[in-house]
């Protein structure tokens, strides 16, 4: 008989093991199955910078966390309720996060002296009794897995690779999830190696059966988390990288252009390159350039040729693109630049997340060189944010910086698949006739101030553009002082004018006025949201506004902030949005920062709110 099933609102589970233990895969499958059960969820893969660090080391530990629930899930959870530690190193590096009283599953089969020493343990923590604050569940998963698959004739190494499926089986049992989606997936994945499929399925089943075993039911609890109430529709899980790629393709379709995506691999931006490289059926051309400069230049050249040029990188690569972005600003060509931010400065912490490229996005070029900056706030949100970036780029003939980060890029969440036919197109109208006075590429739309766009191949509109200042009147090179002033002003006004073409800033939670407005942007959305929810529950007069348009700001933002006594700006940097807010509105926006490469915990922000309100 199986254990009694306890109903929970939500739970946080973290799988942690060696890089070779397949924790990302385990997490991914657990996520898929959980999504199919109708829970809301958020995930956080946290992998090492090394491709495959030596077995058993702490820096080789790979972890995957999922928060899932019968309610809306906004973050990956501050602290796991359940931690699975596949070896001592995983225990060592992850135990600190487990909530006290939480369930701790360890594979005792790996707790040998060699591994303990590699992890930096003087004594076996299990024996030392230092784990008594947790519901410790000791299982020799290694041994049980070997047994489960012994009939399939695998080598020891191969057989042990099934450990993750054993563990997944146990977790599926613990959270009353179905095994079929995993079984199907395994069969598909190993269609060319049916033995492997069978072995993995056997391990999965064995783990599950282990949970069912009566004798253990005293220690092993079983939970049920019901489906969340969501809007009706067709759902799937998406990562930020997927959604941003699809958003770019959707944006280009709405503009009536083909995507030409120029990029150079870099963590954590590469998945966008990978996703788009597989989308040739949508006319997407991808170009893996020799470096980031060539990547942005190729994208710009493609825009010049009438495609939608898009490029993508993370901090160090974006730094290299600065000069070419200036050319895009000067020639007023559309271009979307995706920045998947990571820990800096310099190489920094490539696999960790941060929001420290906002300065670079807004200010990081020579000359007076403004461009629109749009930020994504969650994996699913990437889709719409990317479409907006495309819209602004073609409508205003400007490069647009689209900010995302390592957390969003890799995290997954359930997502209602949008119906593309409901999006309003913003089709580009190329100029095809030179007009009376001959073609002038810098003739502008009176309202948007966007310049005339005629593309090579158009008879009669032959023209030359470049990075030298151009005459406002003719588009030819001009060194005239008054003209330079006018063009500088015009470029600035064009971007500033976008404020009237974007949605007004809304308050996400809380009243329209109050004691404290928490202003966030990007991937801090989840933790701020939850923290504000808690603070409201505590009776604090706090509200949350999350800014998608960082340059220019929505026209009403200044007024909106006036309704609050204090402004707090949580950021995963040293206070960059804070600078822009203070400059723009002369408002005493207080920075609340975290620069550790890890997302905010809800409680950190909540404490911050309380501190600001003296609560």
């Amino acid at each position, binding site marked *: 008989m199986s254990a009694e099933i306890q109903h929970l609102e939500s739970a946080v589970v973290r799988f942690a093991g060696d890089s070779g233990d397949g924790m990302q895969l385990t997490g991914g499958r657990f996520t*898929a199955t959980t*999504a*199919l059960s*109708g829970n809301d969820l958020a995930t956080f893969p946290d992998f090492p910078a090394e491709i495959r660090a030596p077995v058993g080391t702490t820096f080789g530990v790979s972890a995957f966390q999922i928060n899932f629930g019968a309610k809306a899930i906004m973050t990956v959870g501050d602290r796991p309720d359940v931690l699975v530690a596949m070896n001592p190193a995983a225990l060592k590096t992850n135990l600190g996060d487990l909530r006290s009283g939480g369930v701790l599953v360890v594979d005792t089969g790996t707790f040998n002296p060699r591994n303990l020493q590699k992890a930096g343990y003087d004594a076996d923590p299990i024996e030392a009794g230092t784990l008594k604050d947790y519901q410790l569940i000791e299982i020799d998963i290694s041994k049980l897995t070997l047994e489960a698959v012994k009939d399939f004739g695998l080598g020891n190494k191969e057989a042990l690779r099934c450990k993750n499926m054993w563990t997944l089986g146990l977790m599926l049992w613990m959270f009353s999830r179905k095994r079929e989606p995993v079984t199907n997936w395994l069969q598909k994945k190993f269609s060319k190696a049916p033995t492997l499929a069978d072995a993995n399925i056997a391990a999965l089943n064995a783990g599950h059966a282990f949970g069912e075993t009566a004798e253990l039911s005293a220690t092993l609890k079983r939970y049920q988390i019901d*489906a969340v109430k*969501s*809007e*009706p*529709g*067709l*759902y*799937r899980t998406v990562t930020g990288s997927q959604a941003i790629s699809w958003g770019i*393709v959707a944006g280009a379709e709405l503009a009536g252009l083909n995507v*030409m995506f120029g990029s150079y691999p870099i963590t954590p931006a590469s998945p966008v390159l990978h996703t788009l490289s597989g*989308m*040739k*059926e*949508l*006319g997407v*051309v991808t*170009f893996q*350039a*020799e*470096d980031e*400069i*060539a990547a942005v*230049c*190729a994208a710009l*050249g493609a*825009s*010049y*040729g009438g*495609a939608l*040029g898009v490029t993508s990188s993370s901090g160090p690569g974006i730094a290299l693109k600065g000069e*070419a972005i*200036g*050319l895009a600003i000067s*020639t007023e060509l559309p271009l979307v630049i995706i920045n998947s931010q990571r820990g800096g400065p310099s190489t920094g912490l490539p696999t960790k997340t941060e929001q420290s490229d906002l300065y670079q996005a807004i200010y990081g070029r020579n000359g007076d060189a403004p461009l629109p900056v749009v930020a994504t706030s969650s994996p699913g949100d990437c889709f719409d944010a990317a479409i907006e970036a495309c819209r602004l780029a073609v409508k205003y003939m400007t490069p647009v910086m689209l900010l995302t980060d390592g957390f969003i890029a890799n995290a997954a969440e359930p997502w*209602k*698949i*949008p*119906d*593309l036919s409901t999006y309003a197109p913003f089709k580009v109208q190329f100029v095809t*006739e*030179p*007009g009376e006075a*001959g073609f002038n590429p810098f003739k502008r739309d009176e309202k948007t101030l966007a310049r005339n766009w005629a593309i*090579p*191949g*158009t*008879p*009669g*509109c*032959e*023209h*030359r*553009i*470049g*990075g*030298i200042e151009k005459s406002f009147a003719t588009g030819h090179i001009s060194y005239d002082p008054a003209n330079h002033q006018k063009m500088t002003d015009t470029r600035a006004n064009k971007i500033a004018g976008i404020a009237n073409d974007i949605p007004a800033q809304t308050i996400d939670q809380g009243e329209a006025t109050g004691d404290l407005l928490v202003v966030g942007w990007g991937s801090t959305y989840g933790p701020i949201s939850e923290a504000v929810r808690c603070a409201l529950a505590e009776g604090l007069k706090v509200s949350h506004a999350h800014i998608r348009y960082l340059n220019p700001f929505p026209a009403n933002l200044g007024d909106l902030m006036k309704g609050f006594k204090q402004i707090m700006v949580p950021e995963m940097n040293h206070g960059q949005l804070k600078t822009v807010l203070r400059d723009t509105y002369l408002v005493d926006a207080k920075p609340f920062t975290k620069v550790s490469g890890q997302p905010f915990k809800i409680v950190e922000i909540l404490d911050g709110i309380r501190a600001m309100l003296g609560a």
Partner: protein
Amino acid sequence: MNDMSAAKMNEPLKPADFATDQEVRWCPGCGDYAILKCMQRTLPDLGVTRENTVFVSGIGCSSRFPYYMNTYGFHTIHGRAPAIATGLKLANNDLDVWVVTGDGDGLSIGGNHLMHALRRNVDLKILLFNNKIYGLTKGQYSPTSDVGTRSPSTPDGSLDPSLDPISFALGANAPFVARTVDTAQKHMPIVFTRAHQFKGTAFVEILQNCIVYNDDVWAKVTDKASAPDHQLHLEHGKPMLFGKDNEKGIRFNPATFSLEVVTLGNGVDLEHIQVHDETSLPLAQMVARLGHKEGEPVAMGVIYAAPRGETYTEAVLGRVASAKGRRSLQDIMKAGETWVVE
């Protein structure tokens, strides 16, 4: 302009049709003028249209070129023209894209982009104006400057060994490599035409005189009197002869494993003279370096031309074209594991 183009629709274009109304801003006497004129003369013969022709350049005196061509033109940033042109081709492969660059623009800051455009075989026509100096920034030495070049940044003469553009291009796996010179009004069109007709990236080094900062650096090669002894005009399948009366030739010496200059007669016959084979890379690599030693002529014309079938852009766009339409974005989003909330 519209009317003009409409009217001329069926008339063949003339050199003047390729000239813009912008005043040419090079120093009087600069070799760039001759190259410009030559290009304006050659394009009509190639039967191209203005609208499908694009000149993309970097920064430098040479890179001002697009402003004077009444075609599409993009004067980009220093060294990046090959990358921008690559993107342009990937957006529209029907365009004839010429890249104009200098020894500084193309081989100093832009060396990497040039190299990758060459090895990828992007079907760009790349003209490198080699005046062995940075003209626009007032005369500093460049990667092609001869050792000992005195310049504002090397007041005692430069010390770094120089780069040979052709050897570089061949090392970078370029499929077409040629050389010509600003004074050769008859030779340039031939080379431009060959480059244009070549299917794939074509790289042309144009020896160019900067009258202000490096005057006469090519004088030996270009002076009427010394030219015959200093220019070797290559023709595929023809023996490599030069000199006023074709009295000299190039012979391969297996003992030294190198090309050497010989004078015909005294036992040296035409049959000893190396025949140019523009499809031979090893030969091209040797021919490229002729002129480095005293007494050797500089090779002019098509040094190497080995078509490779499909160009990079054709291959890439071909794949996209054959995949296109197979699925819609909506299909892709709906593929995989989905569930319905009711």
